[in-house]
């Protein structure tokens, strides 16, 4: 694995790399030259929202009319994976198109490696875009007035989405309404919401007491327990440190009910931004991408929050509404990733993506033209965790951990039966190990100091 010399990304670098990137892309496939005004880009991000939380995707526990309306305007991907299901890491991949081993953001509160340009820097320099950011960033600070490549509309109140998200949607509304219609530049606007991340507060507030203040009023509305609340205990040792509250069934269902209200809260805020886009008259010429950094446990595998590779944490919504592309379509076939956001945005912006992209433009899938070549979706977690998801199987492994996991996602979408120890799957296991090894061998890994909690330690053993 090679390492690039460390240096800070400058405007000149962006321009130079842009020319190189353009040449690379030109040889790969004919780059679609923009035949009309460049589209604007609206990137909407939520925090801790699992893929199957949208009514349009079959969720019956939450009502998400605004996210659903976006599904009707575009394509919703049902096999969409976060590149690393934790806040900072996932965002670093979304904004750079590179795995977190390359961005250097392998755990929270780290900045993107200085040699890697982000979406704002790239579109501003290469595409002449007006680049504006509102809401959570978390690379490294959650809320900051300074993000490289973006004009930041400070929106504040980090830590509590139920309060701060209104500031984010109002800021976007203000921007879209007051932006000069005669502006010659297209815009890239990022609306980055915090909900339903407040579920983390709910979990800490209820972890020990389990007190359900409003249970009586909502007991007839509680979602059912997930069918995979139980799980195969042959897990990697890293999973033994994950949060698994000792709640009763009623408490689990009450937690789920609260989570889905938070999803509805952010749906309303997303609606405010989408409405403002409509009001601006720019909707028909705007690429809208809606996604999340990671999901939420929701009691599946007895888990809450995130930071592991089961689908409840690793799968995220990815809905793309592009000018001239398919509408009202759900794609349940293709494996897509947070890594694909930047290449897709670049493609529609008529800008060659930065070099070393690990993601692919989704445009062929959105327009039904061209070829799509991803064989598997990779993901990482907690520094040492790796996942390879192929059309049929999911393989999970942690460095220095003898326990591997292999799930047949067709027969066992709830990931309840680990096939790795089953000798009849030895060749499948070997194939997936090989895919992972090949993928890792091609990475330009960033040097990252290991935090204390990530130092290798002995697996816990039961006292005799």
């Amino acid at each position, binding site marked *: 694995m090679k390492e690039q010399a460390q240096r800070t990304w400058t405007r000149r670098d962006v321009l130079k790399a842009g020319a190189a990137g353009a040449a690379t892309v030109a040889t790969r496939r004919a780059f679609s030259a923009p035949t009309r005004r460049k589209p604007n880009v609206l990137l909407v991000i939520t925090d801790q929202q699992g893929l199957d939380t949208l009514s349009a995707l079959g969720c019956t526990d939450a009502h998400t009319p605004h996210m659903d309306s976006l599904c009707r305007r575009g394509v919703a991907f049902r096999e969409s994976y976060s590149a690393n299901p934790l806040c900072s890491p996932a965002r670093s991949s979304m904004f750079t198109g590179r795995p977190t081993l390359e961005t250097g953001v392998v755990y929270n509160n780290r900045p993107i490696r200085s040699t890697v340009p982000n979406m704002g820097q790239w579109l501003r320099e290469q595409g002449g875009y007006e680049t504006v950011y509102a809401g959570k960033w978390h690379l490294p600070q959650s809320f900051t007035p300074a993000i490289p490549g973006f004009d930041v509309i400070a929106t504040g109140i980090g830590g509590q989405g139920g309060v701060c998200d209104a500031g984010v949607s109002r800021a976007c509304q203000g921007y879209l309404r007051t932006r000069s219609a005669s502006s010659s530049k297209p815009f890239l606007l990022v609306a980055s919401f915090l909900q339903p991340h407040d579920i983390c507060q709910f979990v800490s*507030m209820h972890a020990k007491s389990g007190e359900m203040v409003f249970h009586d009023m909502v007991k007839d509305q509680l979602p059912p327990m997930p069918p995979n609340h139980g799980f195969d205990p042959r897990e990697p040792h890293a999973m033994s440190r994950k949060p698994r509250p000792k709640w009763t069934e009623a408490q689990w269902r009450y937690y789920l009910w609260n989570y889905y209200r938070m999803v509805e809260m952010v749906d309303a805020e997303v609606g405010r931004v989408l409405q403002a886009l409509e009001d601006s008259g720019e909707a028909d010429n705007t690429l809208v991408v809606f996604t999340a950094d990671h999901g939420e446990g929701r009691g599946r595998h007895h888990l809450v929050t995130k930071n592991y590779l089961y689908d409840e944490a690793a799968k995220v919504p990815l809905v793309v509404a592009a000018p001239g592309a398919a509408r009202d379509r759900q794609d349940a076939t293709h494996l897509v990733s947070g890594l694909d956001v930047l290449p897709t945005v670049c493609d529609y912006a008529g800008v060659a993506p930065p070099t070393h992209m690990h993601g692919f433009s989704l445009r062929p899938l959105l327009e039904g033209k061209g070829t799509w070549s991803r064989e598997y979706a990779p993901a990482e977690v907690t520094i040492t965790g790796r996942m390879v998801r192929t059309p049929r199987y999911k393989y999970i492994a942690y460095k220095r951990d003898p326990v591997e996991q292999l799930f047949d996602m067709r027969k066992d979408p709830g990931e309840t039966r680990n096939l790795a120890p089953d000798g009849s799957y030895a060749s499948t296991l070997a194939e997936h190990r090989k895919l992972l090894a090949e993928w890792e061998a091609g990475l330009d890994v960033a040097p990252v100091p290991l935090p204390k909690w990530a130092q290798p330690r002995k697996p816990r053993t039961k006292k005799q």
Partner: protein
Amino acid sequence: MAKKRKLDPARTRPLTLEFLRDLGELKEFAPPAGDFDPLGAWTHTYRLWLVQRRLGGGVLVLRREPAKGGVRLTADLAVAEHTGYIRKAKAVVECAADALCTPRAWTLESQGFDADDKPIRGTKVTERGTIANGVLETRFGDRSRKQKVPLPVTCEWSLLDAVQRLPGPKTKPMAFALLEELDLLKPEQRLEFRETKGFTLSERTLPLTGYQQVGRGVLPWQYWVDAQHRLLFAFGGLRAYIYDPTAAEWMQQKLDRARARTRRLKGAKK
């Protein structure tokens, strides 16, 4: 070994009156004295308390004035974060003199201010709105948009007024749609009586009557009024409004500290 960050006790139990008291957040609370007429003119000031109390807080000033054929409600909301950023929203709402204080026409302004209290460019939103015959019309600049809304409909500030006129245990459950900040539609809300109780605070017992609200797109709310029907406390999920006429000073002190901290950080970066 790195020191493990201690979890703020505010994040260790669900939000209730008793928990707020146990946290010491009601130490300064002084029950208002004197008569109160929920149908008259009044001004209430609330401290906005957040579960993430180290990161922010705010103030809500709510004024009610009987007006010709209805009621005028003015809501002044300021929410500040620990960096000194502040978002202010002001709404002047002409309401019907009905049980839900139904909004009929309003103006709303929302804007962000930085740590130096300067308005942040691009954050100002000004809207005028009306609801008539189940149609919400919103006007901004020279544009407008219309949208159907289910009836009855009200807004969160109207509810803070409305709960003060409910008859306690005789209250019949109310169903309505919520128009949060007068533009986010959240249907299927239900408000009902919760309980009456004596709440002990500084060796004094306050007789309180509680109501609760659940519905789409909101975390459940509890409203607590005193024997005069004055709203003293309202909780919604991870935040609480606490009756506190000194809330503006409290927030100013918090802001001064936040801004001094931000200036220190800026200085350190230079």
